[in-house]
């Protein structure tokens, strides 16, 4: 039995027009297939096209050519409103710069996608309480986004993206604004939802995040230069001392 891929991108191309009208290729012929339940990290230097790629996959930017299939359905030909429906029903997206609704509380920001997705108010509230708890934000529920630090806003953005229990979680640098301690909460939540079967595709330069992934895709100048599994070299076990010795 073959499973339908969660994502299938075929020869995906994105060319921007520069200010002087010159074409600037950002993504140059990407083929990418992601299976349901898979966790894929996209890495690469800045300007390599990673953010553009994740935006294309979420329908937040339109492709120049190529195809995008989500859950076996063609998506690149959808209208803007078609994409909006698809995102509401199936995709959670964590933006690099959060995009929280400024005149709503943290709690409402997180509950909104679940309510729009058809969840009951009670279910939306329980889900929100769970996610904010996991991310150490319970006592910030009544605050406005502007009252939060960058790191707190980033965690709220993750909670919002997961509120709807989306089929697919897409994220652009979800730990870019976090210190070590807050990153740990995000890592824990990502690995927990992944274990529960969540499909995740995210852009990151943070090796702790990429280390959780099943597979890493490396981009350079808009093309995939490496795509492979992260294998564990040894079985679980050992102490910090072994690692220190290994690296010494």
């Amino acid at each position, binding site marked *: 039995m073959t499973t339908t891929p969660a994502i299938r991108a075929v020869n995906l191309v994105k060319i921007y027009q520069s200010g002087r009208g010159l074409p600037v290729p950002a993504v140059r012929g990407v083929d990418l297939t992601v299976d349901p339940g898979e966790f894929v990290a996209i*890495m*690469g*230097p800045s300007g390599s096209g990673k953010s553009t790629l994740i935006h294309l996959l979420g329908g937040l930017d339109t492709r120049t050519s190529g195809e995008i299939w989500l859950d076996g359905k063609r998506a690149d030909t959808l209208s803007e409103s078609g994409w909006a429906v698809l995102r509401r029903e199936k995709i959670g997206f964590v933006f690099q710069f959060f995009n929280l609704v400024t005149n709503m509380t943290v709690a409402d920001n997180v509950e909104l996608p679940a309510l729009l997705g058809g969840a009951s108010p009670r279910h939306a509230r329980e889900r929100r309480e769970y996610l904010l708890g996991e991310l150490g934000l319970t006592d910030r529920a009544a605050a406005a986004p502007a009252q939060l630090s960058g790191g707190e806003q980033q965690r709220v953005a993750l909670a919002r993206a997961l509120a709807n229990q989306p089929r697919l979680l897409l994220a652009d640098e979800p730990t870019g604004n976090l210190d*070590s301690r807050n990153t740990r909460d995000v*890592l824990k939540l990502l690995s927990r939802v992944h274990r529960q079967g969540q499909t995740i595709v995210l852009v990151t*330069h*943070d*090796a*702790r995040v*990429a*280390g*959780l992934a099943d597979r*890493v895709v*490396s981009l*350079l100048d808009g093309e995939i*230069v*490496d795509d*492979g599994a*992260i*294998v*564990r*070299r*040894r079985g*679980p076990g*050992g*102490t*910090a*001392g*072994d*690692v*220190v*010795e*290994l*690296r010494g």
Partner: protein
Amino acid sequence: MRQSLLALLAKEPAHGYELKQALEAIFGSAYPSPNIGQIYVTLGRLEKDGHVRSVGVEQSNRPNKKVYYITAAGLETLQAWAEEPTEGPRVRDEFFMKLVLAPMTGLSDRMALINRQRRHYLSLMRELGELAERTDPGDRVALLLIEGAMLHLQADLDWLERCQEELP
């Protein structure tokens, strides 16, 4: 090893096995457990250099054990060690050497080398993450050491990215 033994002896005289136990108690799981033979060899060298002296203590039914104590010269060395800045970590020069030389040999290209190295670093990072999960949250020494290893690894990965951008 020399300095850590001197530091422990600056606190109080001790015999070799006590030093091993003290190191284990202080660093917990964060450091490879010291080998007793290595401790005795190091103590021998320190004694030869005049940094420590030993006295034999008689034991009934057993061979005498040696108790070591620090000398004035040893204290001076320890003081100098504590006050001077510690050398920074070195760049991974073996990998860099491969990276620069590989294309000349025709055996491997740089892109393949960098990709393989990246996957290797990420699998190390994964192990470190799992190790941090398994480590007792109260064991701060071990957790800080793991975090240090992670930060070094992140720097190695960032540098790898720069190599990929800059080297044709």
